[in-house]
């Protein structure tokens, strides 16, 4: 809920102009509106209106200020299956996003809607998700995928981190285990009696208390 923007919400609800800042803003609006009005856009509130309203015909006062014109949503646009496919395919506009994220986030992009239409057409033509992904890979190259296929050199991408961690863990375990095995023989302490000194119950209780206090 946009309750964190009470000033703007109040404007939508039509409160009057109050305060110096709003007054100045309204004056600026009077100056600005004609300049940013889209070419050919002649409908809407009278020029200079401080709080433009949509016209009675449902048209926006400044369509150009509301972003690129949109086409109505089709059933395929909200399909979960198509979303999952598009999330595996990269948009080519340079945004580094997948097709779904780009077309539903960057509404200035013209590439992702085109690629989306291509996915929908293939899907509606009966292609499976795998086939659509393969089609994109064949048509646009491997960079069309959001993650490289786990084959050939790409296997290194997937498995090197895991192998490195397992290897390091194994080496660590081996080295420590080896040292543990060798430690008693390698470092005999002649000053110590063969039996470790007994810990009295009192000493242990005192130690436990001390550790409870300070151990971290």
């Amino acid at each position, binding site marked *: 809920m946009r309750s964190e923007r009470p000033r703007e919400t109040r404007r939508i609800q039509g409160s009057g102009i109050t305060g110096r800042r709003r007054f100045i803003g309204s004056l600026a609006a009077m100056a600005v509106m004609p300049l940013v009005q889209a070419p050919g856009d002649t409908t809407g509130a009278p020029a200079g209106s401080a709080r433009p309203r949509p016209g009675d015909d*449902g048209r926006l006062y400044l369509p150009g200020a*509301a972003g690129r014109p949109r086409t109505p949503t089709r059933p395929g646009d909200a399909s979960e299956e198509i979303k999952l496919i598009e999330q595996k395919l990269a948009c080519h506009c340079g945004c580094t996003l997948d097709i779904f994220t780009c077309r*539903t986030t960057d509404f200035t992009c013209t590439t992702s809607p085109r690629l989306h239409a291509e996915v929908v057409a293939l899907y509606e033509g009966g292609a499976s998700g795998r086939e659509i992904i393969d089609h994109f890979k064949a048509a646009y190259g491997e960079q069309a995928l*959001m993650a490289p296929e786990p084959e050939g050199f790409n296997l290194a991408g997937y498995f090197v981190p895991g192998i490195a961690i397992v290897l390091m863990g194994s080496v660590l375990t081996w080295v420590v285990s080896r040292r543990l095995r060798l430690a008693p023989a390698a470092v005999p302490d002649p000053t110590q009696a063969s039996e470790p000194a007994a810990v009295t119950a009192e000493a242990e209780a005192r130690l436990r208390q001390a550790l*409870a206090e300070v151990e*971290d």
Partner: protein
Amino acid sequence: MTLLGEAMLWLSLLIALGTAGLVAAGSWKRDAALASVVRRSAHVLCGCLAVAALSLWVGIVRHDFNIEYVASYTAQNLPTGYLVAALWAGQKGSLLFWTVVLSLFAALAQWLTPRHHRHLLPHVAGVTAVVLAFFLIVMLFAANPFERMAFTPADGRGMNPQLQNPGMMIHPPMLYLGYISITIPFAFAVAALLSGRLDTGWLHAIRRWTLVSWLFLSAGITLGMWWAYVELGWGGYWAWDPVENASLLPWLTMTAFLHSVMIQEKRGMLKRWNLMLIAGTFLLSIFGTFITRSGVIASVHSFTQSNVGYFFLVFLLLAAIFSFALIWSRWPRLESEVELESMVSREAAFLFNNLALVGIAFSVLWGTLFPILSELVRGTKITVGPPFFNRVNVPLGLFLLALTGIGPLIAWRKASAANLRRQFVIPVLTGLVTLVVVVLAGARDGYAVVAIALGGFVLGTVAQEFGRGVRARGRMHGEGVMLALARLVSRNRRRYGGYLVHVAIVIYFVAFAGMAFKRETEATLKPGQSVELASPFGHTYTFTHMGVSQYQALNRIVSAAAMQVSRDGRDLGILVSEKRQHVDTFGRPTFEPSTEVGIRSDLREDLYLVYAGSVEGTEEAVYRVAINPLVWWVWAGGFFLVFGGLVTMWPGGITVKVARPAALPARAAEAGA
């Protein structure tokens, strides 16, 4: 003012090079006055660079559009808060901001370091001076923030609309503070190596600095997630973008260091490893800067591609060679004082915790650089996006989460089977109960279920630790539960603050798991039409389009699309998403219209509304509506993380005397765990 600012940069460079030269020559060792001059140079540098930053700020606030930086990132109608934030909005200004903050930290390090660590300070001043000199060289020779243009435009280009968010005023500074403050622990580590004082003294000197760095990085990363969520409009908060990854890398290695340093302090082990971690963290912070500024890897966050990347690459390589050569030169003196006694011990658990953290860091680094590697090997630049990172890193993250619960349960030195049984029963049962509850509730996403169950296990561990501590205090001192809890935490801040951080990590993981149950749809609605969406918690939300209003704000024209929202028939109010067309002082559009999402957040789920645009210039609007479960908990996790970190680093508490291992029988140590 620009002349003054630029003069201050040159003066700072001379002072920094002079300080570095004095330290390198070593003459301060024979002359106490010279040592004092070296230390005090940090304060002078701070003063000079503060004047330089103020000069740029004055240029920004006065709208001096003859300065190329001011014209590129500000405009006359830019709100005041963003004028202040414009200092770090662009490459050149952010470099200046970085430099001035580093000089401030360097001066604070000289000022606040206790007397018994003073012997390290000239070396520390030398290292910070070298790093400062590098940044000053980059600014003066490749990215001068005071560069003037041949003409003065009537107005500036303005700030990118996506940066015009309150997050701009706090997220970049937080992240920069995290990155920058890493230099201080690194400087102390180098000082210890150069001076040959390799006892735990330098660790005590940097304890708070490492926590400060880690806290700033944590807060910066979480704020970045929040900003991405509320501003970018894609409905998520982490996309494994190279720049996001670059911030995570030093955080991971710093977290590893915060754990492994305890082993060095308590047992005199892992000295080499700790030095490598600190050096690695510093290098990763520079690497992150290189990634962000070089344009070598495509990212939605990157600054424009520029030649400063080469400067950072060279500095990165030189710093890496210097650091590791220095550690190598002291290698024989960095032997552990004792050996690990058992693979089933707290020390071993910390080792594996470090392995997991550094392994994840390596994995993230590998994925980030893999496109470059692929291009080098195969000539094909591939995309490595979220599917790749999730596949590789989610299992590693879950392993780390498990270790978060396991580590505190294992005794120092050596744990017996009886000890393990006693310690693990409650946490394991908690985890199993959580697993059953989550499965019975209908959750079927494998990773999400495991994450939540492991979260239960870790919470069981933390609750057990707190419970035992409180009971022990109750028995020994006759304190009530709340008093015992307060004293337990206040007397063992590091330990129990750490547990609070573990709770925060659990909250993060559970919240991340929640996104597996996200629901979303797209709809085109005329005023009065509705769309319904079922939430994973079983509610049905109805969104009714009310219409689109347009109005003028300070530097933009806003198109606000409003939705009446109800849950199971009960009215919840109005949700508004906007399109903002930013304009300059003359009313000319400056950027493409940007989108502001509408969010209604509660403990269970967020309603996320995106106004995509209108059909043929009418009030018929295209919306994307999403229900994002548990997002509120991500921010709660961030709060907990910072709170736990503050508890850990808060001054006071008790002084922990380091017990030498031979004095403690293993059985007794086990009992105290």
